């Protein structure tokens, strides 16, 4: 099976670990070989959380610099920072809703302008897809479902061997019962947003 490598970058608290878990469960259901690794030691303390997921016949659970097929950014600055994980063929999907780091918030460092972020990313990779996942999540009924919106956008690219139906099943299985409907709504809104 063709190997596809996905990097997800987010800021602690954005729920990317749940989205990678849903993806992994979906892959399991489809019998797609999958390996994932996460660095989340500082997740609760405002640091960057990164997941690597490898779909297909590979054994490694991490991705070297320049070797991601897709980069999914939960936060635009972090997507830009992770460009070293990409190459000229990489597809980048990023949320446009920003979470300025504390350093920028107090004036130590400048958070780049959104248009500059987009231009930079677009100039380095094959395709950039952007969406305001926070706004879509809010519209779907829960601002915390940003992760599901971004998952929708990711699946819609059809790069990963994962179907939307299997994600639905995995959401039902993995996320809290009370949030399943909103999560599916958020997931679908992410798909529509990038069609």
């Amino acid at each position: 099976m063709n190997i596809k490598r996905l990097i997800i970058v987010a800021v602690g608290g954005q729920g990317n670990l749940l989205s990678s878990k849903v993806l992994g469960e979906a892959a399991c259901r489809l019998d797609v070989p999958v390996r994932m690794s996460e660095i989340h030691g500082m997740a609760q303390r405002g640091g960057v959380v990164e997941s690597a997921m490898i779909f297909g016949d590979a054994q490694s659970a991490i991705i070297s610099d320049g070797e991601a097929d897709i980069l999914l950014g939960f936060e635009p600055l972090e997507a830009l920072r992770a460009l070293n994980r990409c190459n000229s063929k990489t597809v980048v999907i990023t949320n446009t809703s920003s979470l300025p780091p504390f350093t920028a918030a107090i004036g130590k460092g400048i958070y780049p302008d959104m248009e500059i972020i987009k231009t930079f990313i677009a100039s380095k990779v094959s395709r950039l897809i952007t969406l305001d996942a926070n706004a879509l999540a809010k519209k779907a009924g829960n601002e915390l479902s940003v992760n599901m919106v971004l998952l929708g956008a990711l699946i819609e690219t059809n790069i990963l061997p994962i179907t939307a139906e299997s994600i639905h099943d995995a959401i039902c299985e993995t996320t809290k019962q009370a949030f399943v409907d909103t999560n599916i709504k958020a997931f679908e809104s992410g798909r529509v947003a990038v069609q």
Partner: protein
Amino acid sequence: MHKLLKDHSGEKMFLLGNEAIVRGAIEAGVGFASTYPGTPSSEISANFFQIARQSDLYFEYSTNEKVALEVAAAAANAGVRSMCIMKHVGVNVAADVLMTLAYVGVRGGLVILTADDPYMFSSQNEQDNRYYGKLSGLPILEPSSAQEAKEMIGYAFDLSEKLAEPVLFRTTTRLNHSTAPVVLGEMAKRVTMGDFGKDPFNYVTVPAVSRKLHIKLLNNIEKAETISCDSRYNIIEGEGAWGIICNGVSYNYVKDALCDLEVKDKVKIFRVGFSHPMPGKLIKDFIDGCEKVLVVEEGEPYMEEAVKAFAQEAGYTHPIRGKAPELFSRLFEFDPAMVRSAIASYFGIPYETSDLPDLSDIPDLPQRPPNLCAGCSHRATFYAVNKAIEGIETIRPTDIGCYTLGFLPPLSTGDFLICMGSSVGTGCGFSKTTDKKIISFIGDSTFFHSGIPGLINAVFNNHDINLVILDNQTTAMTGHQPHPGVDMKAMNHDGFGRVSIESVVKGIGVEHVTVIRPYNVKKSITAIKEAIAHKGVSVIIAKQACTLFERSLKKQVGKPFYVSDKCKNHRDCINDLGCPAFFVEDEKVRINPTLCSGCSVCAQICPEHAILPLRR
């Protein structure tokens, strides 16, 4: 029921490496487990803790790794299959037990898990604990995947019982924190009670007994080498004149590299999963069948040294390389591209590196360093100490926990750190050899772990130090595990005692003991000033529950604050506290109400009293 307790034999589950390890232990019928929490091993114990509440498995968070291993050593010598879990540096703490337990041995299986942390994602060093196998003489097993980790735990218990000695199970962060589909197996019946057959001339390690036991250990190492040579975890794969010897996660990178380089038919792989004792005979045969050999292992040249020694014994002169400037480093962790490129260069395989984008034109991006949480009581304590010591020259040794982050600006509290508990002992040393005021910082869990002997030392040797115990009533850094000072009843856990830090400190004989509430800034500063004016040992216990933990327990009651129009932009709040709830908008300080926990510390220090509770 806990997902790892369900008998879904034959089914596939998407499991974290650490979960797979727990499942492996459950399938092997483990009856007893102990730990001191430490990343990257923490999820193993977190799962055992939950499982123990739903089954007859016994699990405990012990005071430190030494105690954890003593507890487990006794359980195993009562015949109960036991597991003891710790991070790599935890083994240093437990090493006194380990070295002689290797002589004494066990009756029931004992698996000691050491979670190494190449690259130091969350550790103070990246020591390679395979050397503990050599040092103690005990067998070491190293899995390469979550599935294999699960299987190998059962093998480890069998091996431990066969050799009647503990087995070291070595993982690395990438194994612990990787997730993959794992096929579950059947669960053996759990035995949680046994008996101890007295045999003092084999169990009481006076010199005459130990001399006999050391002979037994050396015999066991020979037996273990024979088993290592037959082990299903020392695997030879493929055919070809080039040889690669690898272990752990490096094996995965090697396998992928051989596919990428299209040289699968030219290379033989020896994957070492049973790495102490190294399978000498097999390695010799392997070398003999190769033109040249590359050793791929993260960390130290542990296997490389052994392989070269075997080659020397056999009189082989084949090139054998591993750690070298142009091949592999002893530093940090490997990745697939690094391994691919070293294999290509060593064997002379043409290979094009992937086209990395030119990122030189990207501007400097603002960093996102980890920070103490909004409302963290440690920030309040550090602020109060900084105010109390204005004009006084100090050295401030710190310790291991969330509060280590206090060494970053603007709090800049933390001058020296070696290991768990070192703030107290090093404080003693600095007090005798410098004329600065010594203020040491230690967390509550770390105090219990290894701060107490240092404090006793300070009292006995009459050192002039002030110790600030940051008591947030949990082991916050590793995920809010309990410790002996925690009120377990309040968290609906019955059957636990509780040790008061204040009583311990007073019992040790510290003359000047003060308890402060760090959210009360003025009172805290006054109390700290008094304590550091005291000549001799003084202790401040800064008591305030971890705000993150309180939030997760839905106990948070504080209302958020906001910055009113009275603000004159002094920015003491931002500059002195650095709380992540602040941000600047249109040149004005603002507070993010969802992050603000209502600790009120900033409101107390604002010179204009401009920060007020938000009324909704």
